[in-house]
Every structure is written in structure tokens, then in C-alpha cells.
């Protein structure tokens, strides 16, 4: 029953979108983290998706996987605050390069994609149940 492949594909997409939501959460949580574990300001992280064959159907069913998590290359946000202990000699503090608006749109997009994949799964389930009902009554 190749409809089971749909479950694999959709669930892989849901996992990927959940990971994207995870990076959004950590980006937003660390939007003001001036110092991260390596001593430098936190850098925004983004996931990179990749299509990958799934199941035994080659080109027909392609799932998603997260190929890598990349750091945003944008320069840090410089804020003039001489009293801050993290300020450099000119009085500027480098804040993380997290763009809060971008993260919010990312969040909405990820949650919508997640929902759509759940719906696709439900549709496949309905189709399978209809198949089971063939010849009944």
C-alpha cells in the first residue's frame, strides 16, 4: 500500500518544520544575548531544507530533511551604550543579528506548513479508510 509513503513524507516535513520552529524559538529567546558560549554575541541560526527520496518509490515520493543549520552572516547590531560592561572602546555594544520581524514571519510560515502537512496526512488517512470500506454494506 503505497499510501503509507504519504505518512513518511508528511511526517518528515513536520519534523523539519518543527526544527525550523525550534531555531526561531532560540533566535527570539537570544535576541538580546550579548554574550554567548563562545564569548561573542549570539548569531541567528537558520535551517536549510533538502528534498530527499523517501519510501520505495524514487522520484514519486520525496520527503524533507534538514541538511544543515547555518548561522546568519549579517553583521551584529551595534548599539551605543558606554555604560554597558560589554561595550568596546568606542562605547558600542554588539547585539545579536537577530531580525525579530523576520523570525516572526518565519514562525508563522513554519506553523502553517506544519498544519498543511497534518491535513495531507488526514486526507491520506481518509482515503485509506475509504479503501477499507469497499464492499461493506
Amino acid at each position, binding site marked *: 500500500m503505497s499510501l503509507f509513503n504519504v505518512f513518511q513524507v508528511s511526517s518528515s*516535513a513536520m519534523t523539519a518544520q518543527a526544527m525550523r520552529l525550534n531555531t526561531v524559538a532560540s533566535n527570539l529567546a537570544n535576541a538580546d544575548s550579548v554574550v554567548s558560549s563562545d564569548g561573542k554575541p549570539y548569531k541567528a541560526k537558520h535551517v536549510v531544507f533538502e*528534498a530527499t527520496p523517501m519510501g520505495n*518509490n524514487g*522520484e514519486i515520493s520525496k*520527503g524533507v530533511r534538514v541538511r544543515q543549520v547555518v548561522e546568519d552572516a549579517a553583521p551584529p547590531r551595534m548599539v551605543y551604550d558606554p555604560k554597558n560592561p560589554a561595550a568596546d572602546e568606542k562605547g558600542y555594544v554588539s547585539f545579536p543579528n537577530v531580525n525579530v520581524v523576520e523570525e516572526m514571519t518565519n514562525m508563522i510560515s*513554519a506553523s502553517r506548513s506544519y498544519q498543511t502537512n497534518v491535513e495531507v496526512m488526514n*486526507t491520506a488517512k481518509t482515503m485509506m479508510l475509504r*479503501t477499507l470500506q469497499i464492499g461493506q454494506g
Partner: protein
Amino acid sequence: MADFSQHFAVLSKALDLRTQRHQVLASNIANADTPGFKSRDFEFATAMQNAMGGNAAGGGVGMARTASGHLSGDAGMAGPGALQFRSETQSAADGNTVDMDVERAQITDNALQYQIITQLISNRLQGLRTAMSSTQS
């Protein structure tokens, strides 16, 4: 009775193709955020014609196998009709051509058609059952 099994062969082939199409559409939706992913689909009518009448009836030209070592010419498109790329309506910056509205409309349409076919099979069986029960009274 031959007519009956022939009918079933057509309907089950149609179910098969609908299932495959659902997989293709599910992959498209799963990869809605994958950079560079191109939306795929196949034409149900053409695939059905190919499946029922062979490639020759569908307008294609089959390759003759004159030695046992030859590969069959249609090995690549053994399952459904050949997968095609969907023409894009709006281009995205990341090269992705999945249009969520189109995909969702298609997947709903496909699921409905699937249910119609299951209903047809059920009705067919029901007719057979009625024919059998009418003699027992």
C-alpha cells in the same frame, strides 16, 4: 463475468494512479519550503490511457527488444505517466515552484476522485450481491 473483472481492472488501476498522484502532491506540499525544489505532477488521463492501452495506444512508440540483454525502453516510467514539472505562476527568490493553493486544490480533487472510485467499486459489488440474493427466497 469477463466484463465484470475487466471493470474491476480499470477501477483498481485508477485507484492505483490516484494513490500515486497523492504521493506526488504530498511530496510537493512537504517540500513547499525547500529551496530549489520544483513542483511535480502527472496528468491522470494520459497516465490512465498509458496504463490501459499500453504506450503504443497512448501515442508513444515502444522499443523492440531483439536480444535478452536489452533494457525495456519504458523502464523509467513504469509506474504512472511521466512526471512533469508544474508551470510556475509566481517565481520565488529561492527557486521553489510550489504554489500551496494549487497543490491543496489538487490534493482535495484527487482525494474526492479516489472516493468516487471506491464508491463505484462498492456499487458494483452491491449489484452483484443483489443479483445473488434475489434467487434465495
